[in-house]
């Protein structure tokens, strides 16, 4: 399940809004995307997760034709990402991580500008409708730069659905946005999905990942895990325990030294500890309880975050070993 799950999928590619295979992209010496394959069925909300600098933005830019892949093939909405990017741009909406509209234009001017770029017949009316939907009609003559972070993102989203795209590519749309605005933003995403629009959205928030139909976890330019959130959790071999204790710092210190404990995270008066070897983990907890009799342990279902951090750490260890090996080879 953990290894290149995307490639093994036997579905017909026609059924996918996004179907890309083995994408590669380098910037100078940096090989950012290393064989990324993604399949997103039509109408799905696909969460794109992974640590910073792992190639999420680069992958999204390749999907919408802003970057040309060094290697690899694929389609978006059935169009070739290499040769038909102009057609993709017409039917997809891309929202960059950085606010891409003009701070020195008003909200209305921005929307009208975008509508005209897509050659929509009545840009003014299109903008008016969008303003009403957004609830920004009374502020239409305010400069976009004066909006708060949450409103800027909602305006950017409104701008990228003006031309009624069939696919939305959203790059960390809710980064730095307050929880209420985030929730509203996701309600809008679900409304679009209900209309049949496919959405690929990158995020760092696990609660947002859980609102996706499917997620893909990208690490070092490769899709490491993918599937529905419940499946990923169910198939994870990670054992997770919750320890409740008064002196969590000391308990944690004790546990970290014991075999079988691969991850220990403090949540105030509670600790989450996890490991792939369930028996070793259980033995470690029992030995710890011999030292700290007051500590209570309870087995829990691992959260998505637990699984990802654990996976990341495991791959990181493997990679650093490979790099050390490579270093030895080079010096030999």
């Amino acid at each position, binding site marked *: 399940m953990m290894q290149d799950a995307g490639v093994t999928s036997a579905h017909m590619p026609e059924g996918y809004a996004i179907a890309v295979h083995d994408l590669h992209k380098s910037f100078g010496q940096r090989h950012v995307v290393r064989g990324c394959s993604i399949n997103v069925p039509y109408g799905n909300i696909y969460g794109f997760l992974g640590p910073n600098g792992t190639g999420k933005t680069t992958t999204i830019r390749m999907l919408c*034709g*802003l970057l040309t892949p060094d290697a690899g093939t694929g389609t978006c909405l059935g169009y070739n990402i290499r040769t038909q990017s*102009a057609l993709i741009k017409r039917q997809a909406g891309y929202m960059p991580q950085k606010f891409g509209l003009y701070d020195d234009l008003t909200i209305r001017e921005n929307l009208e500008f975008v509508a005209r770029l897509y050659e929509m017949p009545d840009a003014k009316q299109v903008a008016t409708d969008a303003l009403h939907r957004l609830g920004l009609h009374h502020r239409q003559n305010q400069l976009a730069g004066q909006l708060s972070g949450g409103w800027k993102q909602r305006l950017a989203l409104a701008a990228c659905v003006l031309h009624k795209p069939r696919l939305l590519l959203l790059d960390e749309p809710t980064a730095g946005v307050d929880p209420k605005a985030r929730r509203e933003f996701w309600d809008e995403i679900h409304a679009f999905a209900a209309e049949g629009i496919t959405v690929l959205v990158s995020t760092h928030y696990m609660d947002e990942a859980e609102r996706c139909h499917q997620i893909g976890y990208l690490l070092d330019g490769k899709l490491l895990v993918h599937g529905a959130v419940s499946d990923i959790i169910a198939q994870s071999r990670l054992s997770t325990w919750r320890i409740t204790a008064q002196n969590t710092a000391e308990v944690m210190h004790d546990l970290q030294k014991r075999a079988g404990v691969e991850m220990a995270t403090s949540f105030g008066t509670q600790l989450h500890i996890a490991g792939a070897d369930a028996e070793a983990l259980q033995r470690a907890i029992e030995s710890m309880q011999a030292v700290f009799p007051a500590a209570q342990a309870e087995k829990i279902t691992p959260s998505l975050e637990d699984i990802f951090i654990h996976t990341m750490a495991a791959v990181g260890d493997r990679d650093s070993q490979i790099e050390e090996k490579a270093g030895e080879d080079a010096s030999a």
Partner: protein
Amino acid sequence: MISGKFSLQRMRALIIKEFIQILRDRSTFGIIFMMPIIQLMIYGYAINTNPKHLPTAVVMADDSLYVRSLTAAMQNTGYFSFTDFPPTVAEAEDLMAKGDVQFIIEIPQNFSRDLLRGEHPDVLVVADATDPVAIGNAISSVAHINTTALSRDLEKAGDALQTRGPPFTIKVHNRYNPEGLTAYNIVPGLIGLLLNMTLISMTAVAITRERERGTLENLLAMPARPFEVMIGKITPFIIIAYMQAAVILIVSHILFGLPIEGSLLLLIFGLSIYIAANLAIGFTISTFATNQLQAMQMTFFYFLPSLLLSGFLFPFRGMPLWAQYLGNAFPITHALRILRGLVLKGIGLHHIAADLWAMAAALVVVGYIAMKRYRETID
């Protein structure tokens, strides 16, 4: 309270940080050192406010020992270089209109006969006064040449001639700018200069700003083609450029009485090519600059040498050949000639054709680089 006092350590931290940032921005750093070197080169080697060996056309309606002595004496001043010997005055004036010669010397018919008769014939020196600085020293060098140039030749002809004052008269006519007003020279140049500065910097910064703010990424993800983005960017500046040129011409017509001798239509045509070339340069700069500061720096990096070598501030003919070749590569040099030619000389299309072609060539070359570097993708 510690934080209220001046801290040497904090100041040190700030200075170190500032140095790191300056050193990291390679292009700005490079320009900081290249600018003075290039300016030193230009001021030290290229600029000469006392230009010599100015191209001169001689119309000889008479040819004799005396004429040859006279022309030799003029050449010996170092200011004149006889490049053309057209048979008629009309042809000589055509050369001047084109800007091929700075002076015309007219030796009248029967010069030698009149000289020997003691009738004090006139030798006419016509100067292209569109650039008063360029001709000033040359003119004063010939002012008294009449007293000395022929003294040895005339000794043989008899002392009588010498005692009656100078044997001939030098008459100087300033053509195109008869009063030698510097303003007349400067104003057409100013149009070239201002268009150079505003167009290049505004275009360069406007496009770099889109990239810096991230709006370009959004723009390119929408169906906007690079060519459309480019035209959209530069159209407002074209209008601004025409307005700027019009303001200068109208105001200087009212304030200085600046004439427009040539065809206004031709002026607009010439300006159009010049404006397009400048916009292409600005656009090209924007494809190299990563932020607005760099764009401004690069603009100045282009602007100063082009200004100094264009003939706007210093006589073009005063520069050594290498500097003239370099100066000819800049559109502003040709624009200045066209502007001065049309405003002051009233010349026609065939006189400015070479300069128009030169600007068009620059436009094609720079435009090609700009389109080549500007891509639809952001990689």
